[in-house]
């Protein structure tokens, strides 16, 4: 029996990471505005002895031609209000909230995090992000969105100021909140090497993940940090079933949740083009897309729409492909197979843990806690019980000794 303590996070987003998850009949969408909904998930996660729950932050609403897309209007609440409320109704699990360094005041953020870390006895993490959406800028009195280099430069100063302020305040239960970071660009990696204690990453292939972890651990050494002070946790979107056939059937059922209207809205939002007038069985309107208002590189590069075979897919086929392919690693199979996969990645040094992103949380979370965690426990891959009271303790991270490290 090994003793590995694979870190486990649960990324809670709406009713699940399938954008159409709210359409699942058991769970009305307005539940997402109640404490009860999140309390139930948090207690399930705590029952499974997960290390932390992770919340994103979205600072704009999806819009096309001045209308705010009803298909994509699922609410993301303020993580730093949600987390203290959930802290009051849980005992041990940690909570990481995303808060932008681009559009918030460092002093206000420092005070918020320090207060929450005191309220929950040191169970707080801060996902440090720079906000790269121009629609967010429009809600924060900014006409021009700052570029990536500028944002990261600002983020570095921001984190320094937050940590300096913490030094001047009364002590916090875990020294200070855990610093989490999610960028994987070269600038993001440099920032992570200096600042991050947990990295939330995208990793679809084990070998690439092993190389990435090696690179990051080396980068920590290069800036004088102990590589053991970094936990790399790739996102994974598992779909479970009692048998492989059941899991595949669940995958199909989840795809049905994604309404064509939702997918058209997502595609429209991506390019600033209204797709509702195009036929689903005709090829993608590439000429119109190339002239759309938001055509750019990366996610918005029209070349990404064309298949590997060079064929222009129909709008309908493209949407079906999009519904299936996620940015994060996906998994479809039995609890035993998922446990094997987590074991295999961890054994290979591809990661220190995982951030679980269930397409439909009302099914995925209890299935994971009741069927996968017991297998992981039996194999000695995760903790049997919370041995610590703080998030640092759960993750095996030490308390900062020297204050500002950069």
């Amino acid at each position, binding site marked *: 029996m090994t003793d590995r303590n694979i870190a486990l996070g649960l990324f809670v987003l709406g009713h699940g990471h399938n954008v159409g998850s709210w359409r699942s009949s058991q769970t009305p969408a307005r539940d997402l505005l109640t404490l009860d909904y999140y309390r139930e998930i948090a207690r399930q996660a705590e029952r499974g002895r997960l290390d932390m729950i992770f919340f994103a932050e979205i600072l704009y609403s999806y819009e096309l031609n001045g209308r705010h897309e009803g298909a994509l209007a699922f609410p993301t609440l303020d993580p730093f209000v949600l987390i203290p409320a959930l802290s009051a109704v849980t005992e041990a699990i940690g909570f990481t909230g995303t808060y932008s360094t681009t559009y918030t005041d460092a002093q206000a953020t420092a005070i918020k995090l320090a*207060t929450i870390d005191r309220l929950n006895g040191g169970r707080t993490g801060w996902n440090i992000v720079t906000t790269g959406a121009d629609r967010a800028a429009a809600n924060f009195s900014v006409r021009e969105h700052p570029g990536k280099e500028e944002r990261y430069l600002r983020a570095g100063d921001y984190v320094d100021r937050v940590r300096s302020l913490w030094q001047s*305040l*009364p002590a916090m239960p875990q020294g200070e909140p855990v610093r989490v970071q999610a960028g994987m660009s070269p600038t993001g990696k440099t920032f992570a090497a200096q600042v991050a204690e947990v990295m939330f990453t995208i990793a679809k292939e084990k070998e690439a993940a092993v190389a990435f972890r090696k690179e990051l651990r080396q980068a920590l050494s290069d800036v004088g940090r102990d590589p053991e002070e970094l936990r790399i946790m790739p996102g994974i979107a598992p779909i479970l079933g009692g048998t492989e056939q059941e899991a595949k059937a669940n995958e199909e059922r989840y795809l049905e949740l994604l309404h064509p*209207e939702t997918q058209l809205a997502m595609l429209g939002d991506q390019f600033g083009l209204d797709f509702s007038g195009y036929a689903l069985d005709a090829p993608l309107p590439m000429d119109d897309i190339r002239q759309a208002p938001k055509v750019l590189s990366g996610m918005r590069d029209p070349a990404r729409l064309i298949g590997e075979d060079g064929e222009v897919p129909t709008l309908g086929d493209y949407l079906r492909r999009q519904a299936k392919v996620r940015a994060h690693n996906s998994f479809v199979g039995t609890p035993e197979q998922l446990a094997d996969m987590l074991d295999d990645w961890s054994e290979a040094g591809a990661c220190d843990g995982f951030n679980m992103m269930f397409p439909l949380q009302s099914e995925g979370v209890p299935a994971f806690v009741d069927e996968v965690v017991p297998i992981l426990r039996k194999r000695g891959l995760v903790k049997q019980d919370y041995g610590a009271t703080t998030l640092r303790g759960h993750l095996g991270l030490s308390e900062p000794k020297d204050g500002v490290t950069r």
Partner: protein
Amino acid sequence: MTVRMVGPTVIVPSDLTSATLPQWIEAAVRLDEAGWPLLVVGNCDPKDPLDGLAMAAYCAAQTRNIGLCAVVDPLTVEPFTLARGLATLDHMSGGRAAWRLIGGESDANRCRELVEVVRKLLTSWEPDALIEEADKGLLSDRDRVHPIAHEGDYFAVEGPLNIPRPPQGRVPLVALAGESPFNELADLLLNDGTTLNVSLEDLAELSDMTPPVTGETLVERLGGLQ
């Protein structure tokens, strides 16, 4: 301490610090059970500041009826961030959120505009805009969610808020008498006689008393004093 019972009363902790935090949380539960209408939480003490929204959220999860007023520093917050925080607190607490500005006298015009923009954002979704039409794939009615397109001297905010309208809609801004320049902005203005600055020592006396409170909503429960 002599308590003057002149009506629904706001309780403002006078010795709330990080060291007394656990006792004040316990006190919030007792005050709630005793039927007190509003507790003000958070402080802007530069040596030991406590975030009002975080404290109010923590208290909300452990209480049923008491209103929770978050102290807000108006000079370090963006209206979109503040509106998201207030809307979240109001949803989480079932419509028990309030806010109070502390500081900001040095920049009263900015504060006025901050309040204006926060209110526009909190009401940018019409009350019935969350339609949940699963068959059509529509969560909200596009025609009942409105950008605010605010262009002012201090803030330019497109909106709408990306959280549906909170239970109270316009979450009440509370000001205590003498808190110029914010009295004119307040939804609820409370006078000295109804505001108790209370220390932990005084709490034993308070929790035995039942203040005369009626009304369903926070504004109704406190509104008689305007």
